[in-house]
């Protein structure tokens, strides 16, 4: 009973956190901070997959979405310069 209540609460809290972190990813001015926000969104999405009993998809999501996409974004961001310094 208590376990079901906890799982229901997590099912409500995690999607709200996904939406909040996505809004952060849009409104942050620093590009690396925005990339980290995208990574956090993907991590929360993989947590949601795990709660929905798909651990296979969760591992693939946390590898591809939360790590490799962030690595590609950071490589691309560090190859550019800020508008003020250019």
């Amino acid at each position, binding site marked *: 009973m208590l376990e079901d209540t906890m799982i229901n609460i997590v099912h409500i809290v995690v999607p709200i956190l996904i939406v909040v972190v996505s809004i952060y990813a849009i409104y942050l001015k620093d590009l690396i901070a925005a990339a980290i926000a995208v990574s956090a969104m993907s991590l929360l999405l993989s947590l949601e997959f795990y709660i929905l009993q798909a*651990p*296979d998809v969760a*591992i*693939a999501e946390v*590898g*591809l979405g939360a*790590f*490799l996409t962030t*690595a*590609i974004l*950071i*490589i*691309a961001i*560090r*190859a550019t310069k800020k508008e003020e310094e250019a």
Partner: protein
Amino acid sequence: MSGMSRIVKTITNVAFPFVMIYGLYIIARGHLIPGGGFQGGVVVASSLAMVLVAYGSIWIVGKVKEKNLSVLESLGAICFIGLGFIGVILILFYSSFEGSFLKNFLIGQDTIPIFNEIGKGISNINTAGIIPLMNFSVGMIVIAGLFVILLVMAYATRIKEGK
């Protein structure tokens, strides 16, 4: 692309072996637990990408060549398709062998006892015949294929920085 700060490098040095060994564990136990070749390969490629991002592309020049990664990827594909075709080829040598493409010839068949012995010897840890070997093949393909994308991107940024 130059390297990142000393904090990032230190955390990478600590976390890299754990992430890589966890990815290899996901590959090796893929037939028993959630996971498999693709997921474990993604985790191992993530650990390599972590080193690449932390130390920068100037450091990694000359240490890894994308030609070697291409060889690794092709080797994984050849291992996968070869294991599939061994099940067909064995029909030519043993007429009573019920073979087909991707036949699990290392376990549960009576015509070739030596393969059952080999499979039993390995199967003290793995009880699935050729499925772990196929997971390793897929893992090789995924590691090489995902790491070479990041490596080519890092090379491209290095060329731009040199000018």
